[in-house]
């Protein structure tokens, strides 16, 4: 977490000299400042792991948008002459038991997964920010009540509840599934945000803003939110993963009707038609691998954010590697200093390791 206040901004009742200084900044500089600040807001994504994850994610989003253009066939086009064919130049990923093209189904299935994943995560994140930040900023019974609400949602088991709720609908539309997944998945993020807001509440810059008489809305939106961005991003990414796994699992179980195409539905059909028993790998491998790939991409993004929030996670490994290059072991930090002074370096170091 960055502790610094967003600088270069004038408080409501700041002294006159402040105003003079800000008046000299030209328009161009101000624009650059805006972009720099925007860049700083997304600093948690500026590392190799996050960028790799985001690129994979962007690929799936593009596939979802242009599904109609890039899929070679219609996902539901039945072709009785081409049943259960292994991959061929006409059908890159083979065909199903009624001759549907698996590749087209996977491409079209991306849409449901992406839409539900992001919509559910957006709903969950909005609730998590609202409840978490307010519960963290307030004190007394209001904060306790919001915290109790969060804990109730944390404790109530999600998947069984979704199964029960989904059976209410005869034919649940995508947005309803996303809404239910979002309503169940916000509690964890709210809990983390509440804890962080409680620790921010008593930092100097927030106390200063309050002393200046800034309204609550401004304190939360302008002073606190930028410092919570990394946590918000992490909880968003976590919820996307959970929602995608939830959606595909529900589709596989058959709780969600098979008309809404997604990767779980394909696996449901494959499993029902015995593809796993008859080794029709082209049918059941691609959808599962796609879910795994999108899951890996999302965890990569989260690893990047984790390392930004807690730099020790990255630096610990790097420091250990740097020391090993010098022939030292990080766990023998104290003896290592001693062996540098003593002349019989190797025997001392190995002796130390043997006792360890």
């Amino acid at each position, binding site marked *: 977490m960055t502790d610094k206040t967003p600088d270069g901004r004038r408080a409501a009742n700041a002294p006159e000299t402040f105003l003079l200084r800000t008046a000299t900044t030209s328009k161009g500089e101000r624009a650059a400042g805006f972009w720099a600040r925007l860049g700083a807001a997304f600093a948690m994504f500026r590392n190799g792991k996050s960028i790799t994850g985001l690129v994979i994610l962007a690929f799936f989003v593009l596939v979802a948008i242009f599904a109609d253009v890039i899929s070679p066939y219609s996902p539901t086009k039945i072709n009785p002459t081409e049943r259960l064919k292994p991959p061929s130049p006409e059908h890159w990923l083979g065909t199903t038991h009624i001759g549907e093209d698996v590749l087209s189904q996977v491409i079209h299935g991306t849409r449901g997964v992406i839409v539900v994943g992001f919509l559910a995560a957006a709903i969950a994140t909005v609730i998590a920010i609202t409840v978490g930040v307010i519960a963290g900023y307030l004190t007394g019974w209001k904060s306790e009540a919001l915290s109790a609400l969060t804990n109730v949602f944390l*404790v109530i088991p999600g998947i069984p509840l979704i199964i029960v709720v989904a059976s209410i609908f005869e034919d649940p539309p995508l947005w309803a599934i996303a809404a239910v997944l979002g309503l169940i998945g916000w509690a964890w993020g709210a809990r983390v945000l509440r804890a962080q807001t409680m620790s921010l509440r008593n930092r100097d810059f927030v106390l200063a803003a309050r002393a200046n008489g800034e309204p609550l809305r401004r304190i939360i939106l302008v002073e606190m939110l930028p410092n919570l961005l990394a946590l918000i991003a992490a909880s968003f990414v976590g919820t996307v993963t959970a929602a995608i796994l939830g959606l595909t699992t529900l589709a596989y179980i058959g709780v969600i009707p098979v008309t809404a195409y997604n990767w779980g539905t394909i696996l449901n059909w494959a499993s029902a038609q015995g593809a796993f028993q008859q080794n029709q790998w082209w049918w059941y491998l691609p959808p599962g691998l796609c879910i795994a790939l999108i899951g890996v991409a999302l965890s990569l993004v989260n690893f990047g954010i984790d390392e930004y929030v807690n730099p020790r996670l990255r630096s610990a490994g790097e420091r250990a590697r740097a020391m090993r290059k010098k022939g030292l072991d990080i766990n023998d*930090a104290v003896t290592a200093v001693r062996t540098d002074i003593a002349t019989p370096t190797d025997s001392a170091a190995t002796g130390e390791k043997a006792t360890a």
Partner: protein
Amino acid sequence: MTAIQPPLTEPEVDALEVGTTATKASKGRSRIPWRFLGGRAAFYLFTLWAAITINFFLPRLMKGDAVSAYLARNRNVTPEAAESLRALLGLDTDKSLLQQYIDYWSHLLRGDLGVSLLHGLRPVTEVVGQALPWTIGLVGFATIVAFTIGTVGGAIIGWRRGSKLDVFIPITTFLNTIPYFWLGMLAIAAFAVNLRWFPIGKAYGVGVKPEWSFEFIGQVIHHGTLPVLTIVVASLGGWMLGMRNMMLTVLDEDYITVAQAKGMPNRRVLWGYAARNAVLPQIQSFALSLGFVVGGTIVMEMVFSYPGIGKLLLDATNAKDYALMQGVFLVITISVLIANVLADIAYAFLDPRTRQTEA
């Protein structure tokens, strides 16, 4: 400068009696933190009430009722019989919602969860009680195995940071992100269908009677191996990553440096100092995951057609057997709550700071 100095009053307290902050802490340990316990108890009662209320309203929101679904399956039921079935299941709608709610509570407090249409009108408690041991036994065992391997492995990976062992983190994370049902189906395809090492599903073979014999226990182990292995493989990553990240944070603490400076053997610094402190959050999430043992494995039980709680819930949902659905959901929620209580107790016991700050 003032001429008259105020006389220095000697405080009339015994220094030994007052003691230092350390004596205060050791004294405080024996005191029972009533405020903390009271707050937690209130929270659990509130959650339990919320869960039971949700449980009451869910079936009433649904389209189609159990009796209609039952009639669709069994043609030769007279309308009178259908009406009495409705009355038996508490589905007659001439009572007000409040009255139904009160009735629901009074039945619940008497331990009466109704009867299951799907299982020939047997009491729900009996049906659930039959499925519960299978789920708890199999998934509980798998959770303990995954927790142990993951935590010990995570501690070692964190200790040997920057070494080749780091490669385990992306591998287990990958296994963690793939959907469980897919992993299970792949395992069945590879080890049960092609290699024929394990049976395809069920808890024991056809024609074997459940009894305490070596044959039956051998069957259960043979049938349970594949589900246990897949659960362990799928959940290992979370434990390992959590422990490793905590280790990296703890290893930077001053007391680790001090312990090493004192010349303690590495084994003792690793297990007695670093891992001991890093394991605290792990133990809390372990207790929480014990709660999800009962409800979190619906998919496993479906893939391996294992006769546990999750399969019961799925079958009940498909047949719209509300009494059974409510019963299963209640059992799942209560087990999560019990696990939370255990987590709280374990945490308060292991880490005195929680007793002081959270109260």
